[in-house]
């Protein structure tokens, strides 16, 4: 998903991309995909009423979008589909009784959809906007008509999921939600709702990071890997936390080599926040200093990427470390760890800087192109 944002040339259509892209309007379908000037069949000069119009692409059998919200599926991955974070309106892929295995931190995704038991009614039928209004004013706004476009701006607005700052009729004062970067529509663990606000990887608008989980990262067909995010600074993956959450895999830095690519030593998740103190990084810095490259190695925390792979145990390999044309370096050799009881995960860490002028919608293009190579 991360990379698919950039290389969506295979017919995939993603939010805030055509046709839901503010200011695009470059092809006839940018308007005519949904509107008819003189022959519209629904309010707003739409070809069809919501949600049927939206389901033309985002519904079961719709070929215009990977995000099939009717069934809670995301297409375009290695598997025939994966689970949308938001669930679905008719079906969903949430393993709702999975919290006990292997631990209370997991709500895994199902492989087959199940009918939903409750959903936001998006067909415009009158309902109650529960909790709307001031306190002590009753259960909420009644006869509230909700449609897809009540929450999402189909013209795109740069917000997370194209959410409207003020859903029409809500009476809200306005609340923007920074888009994630990169976009990631699906999940394998519904308890993990963490996302990367735009700009975070580039060092701007950096916000405290909540915890995230380092397992069950789905493998993508075209890119083989998924970039994931940095962990909570204070989270000790190995020992678990005070709430009893299971410990997460740690990553052993491989043996150092003559190029200084990987200093030996253990790199815990806690070390990720203070990477400059990790032995891996220290070794790299030391080597770089010896090579006279100190100036080329700025302090790294803003730009470290953890890359995870999920592979079958039988088919795993370890040929996935490399330096990236001087802009990044592998600091740790991949290390196989079993996590979540069923997934073999590899991880190694890179640092680097965005390539100026090559900004993409997610990472910089430079990152994507390099990191997205198949092995």
């Amino acid at each position, binding site marked *: 998903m991360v990379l698919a944002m950039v290389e969506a040339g295979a*017919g995939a259509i993603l939010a805030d991309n*055509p*046709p839901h892209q*503010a*200011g695009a*309007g*470059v*092809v*006839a*379908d*940018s*308007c*005519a*995909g*949904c*509107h*008819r*000037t*003189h*022959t*519209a*069949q*629904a*309010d*707003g*000069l*739409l*070809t*069809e009423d919501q949600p049927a*119009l939206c389901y*033309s*692409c985002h519904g079961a059998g*719709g*070929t*215009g979008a990977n995000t099939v919200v009717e069934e809670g599926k995301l297409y375009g991955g290695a598997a025939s589909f994966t689970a949308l974070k938001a669930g679905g309106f008719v079906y969903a892929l949430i393993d709702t009784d999975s919290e006990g295995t292997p631990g209370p931190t997991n709500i895994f995704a199902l492989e087959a959809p199940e009918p939903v038991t409750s959903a936001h009614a998006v067909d415009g039928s009158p309902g109650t906007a529960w909790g709307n209004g001031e306190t002590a004013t009753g259960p909420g706004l009644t006869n509230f008509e909700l449609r897809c476009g009540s929450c999402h701006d189909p*013209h795109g607005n740069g917000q997370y999921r194209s959410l409207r700052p003020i859903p029409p009729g809500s009476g809200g004062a306005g609340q923007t939600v920074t888009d994630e970067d990169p976009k990631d529509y699906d999940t394998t663990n519904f308890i993990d709702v963490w996302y990367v606000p735009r700009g975070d990887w580039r060092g701007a608008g950096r916000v405290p990071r909540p915890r995230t989980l380092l397992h069950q990262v789905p493998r993508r067909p075209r890119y083989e890997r998924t970039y994931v995010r940095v962990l909570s600074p204070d989270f000790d993956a190995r020992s678990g936390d005070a709430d009893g959450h299971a410990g997460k895999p740690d990553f052993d830095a491989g043996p150092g080599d003559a190029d200084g690519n990987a200093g030996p030593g253990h790199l815990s998740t806690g070390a990720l926040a203070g990477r400059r103190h990790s032995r891996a990084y220290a070794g790299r810095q030391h080597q770089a200093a010896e090579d006279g490259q100190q100036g080329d190695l700025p302090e790294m925390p803003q730009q470290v990427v953890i890359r995870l792979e999920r592979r079958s145990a039988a088919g795993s390999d370890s040929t996935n470390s490399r330096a990236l044309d001087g802009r990044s370096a592998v600091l740790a050799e991949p290390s196989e760890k079993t996590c979540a009881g069923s997934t073999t995960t590899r991880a190694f860490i890179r640092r680097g800087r965005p390539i100026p002028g090559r900004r993409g919608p997610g990472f910089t293009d430079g990152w994507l192109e390099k990191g997205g190579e198949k092995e």
Partner: protein
Amino acid sequence: MKWLISVTGVAAGAALMLIVAGLAGTATVSADNGPHVQGAGVVADSCAGCHRAHTGQADSLLTEAQTGLCLTCHDGTSADTNVVDGVEVSSDGALRAGGFTNARLETFDTTANTIAASTPQAVSSEHDVDVAGVLWGNGVNDNVDPGDVGGTTTLRCGSCHDPHGNDSYRILRPKPNGSGAAGDADVADEVTIDYTTTNYFDVSGVSQTEISAWCGQCHTRYLASTSAANADFIFTYRHESDGSGSDGSEAYDPGKAPSCIRCHVSHGTNAVTYSTDPTPTPGGDPTPTPDPGYSGRVPWPGATPAAGDTSSNSRLLRMDNRGICQKCHNK
């Protein structure tokens, strides 16, 4: 090249006519001038420029069938209005109506409130003449399932323009031939006739309500004073199009309805449309991609459109793709 309609209708013999009709010394003819002046009829060519009493070669005793007869003058050889190429000969100005073979709209102009005139480009859609075509939206609003988009008709230059002159804007017939309209729709002529423009976004000079009502003589079910639903099975929700409150020159104002000509030209446009190509080249190859595009994934109201009746048809629009929508809505 397809032979096409003429803006001022029958004009054969105009080169001779203009001399004796009081325009001696000029080389061009203007609408409601030359041979197209109501009640002129003072010289032989007033009739004989186009008609033969005993040796006519086409219906109505015409010397030649339309469109060829009209283009005897309006192809740039004698009349000032070269409707083939969309240009006024004397000034080399761009005709407001576009043209039938070439037109001069800078259809990718993203400047606010401006669509500049450009160099000649091949048209991508035009009012077909001499061939049977769909009279889109003709008829009454009804709720017949699946309904029809309009009957068929064969347009000719004289379907819209009265070659004998009638003092109307562009000598438009109050009741276009074949329209089936019940009453007349008069369009007052310009105070100062000007066939050209340097800004195709400015369509002032003619009453916006009158010109919309006139277009509505044929395209009856397109004419809308509200975007609320009506009973028609196909033309159910419609963009306001009656020109109310508008003088045709102002920027977007939600309180003013555009007229038909705010978005469409009447003769032909060189706008290009792409269904799904994400990076169209302005003025480039208009060939649509095979991909059905988003519009190919949503249902056509009432029936499956005929080939070519998709969003990749430029529909006489003034800008590439749906740029004319963006001109106001800026989504």
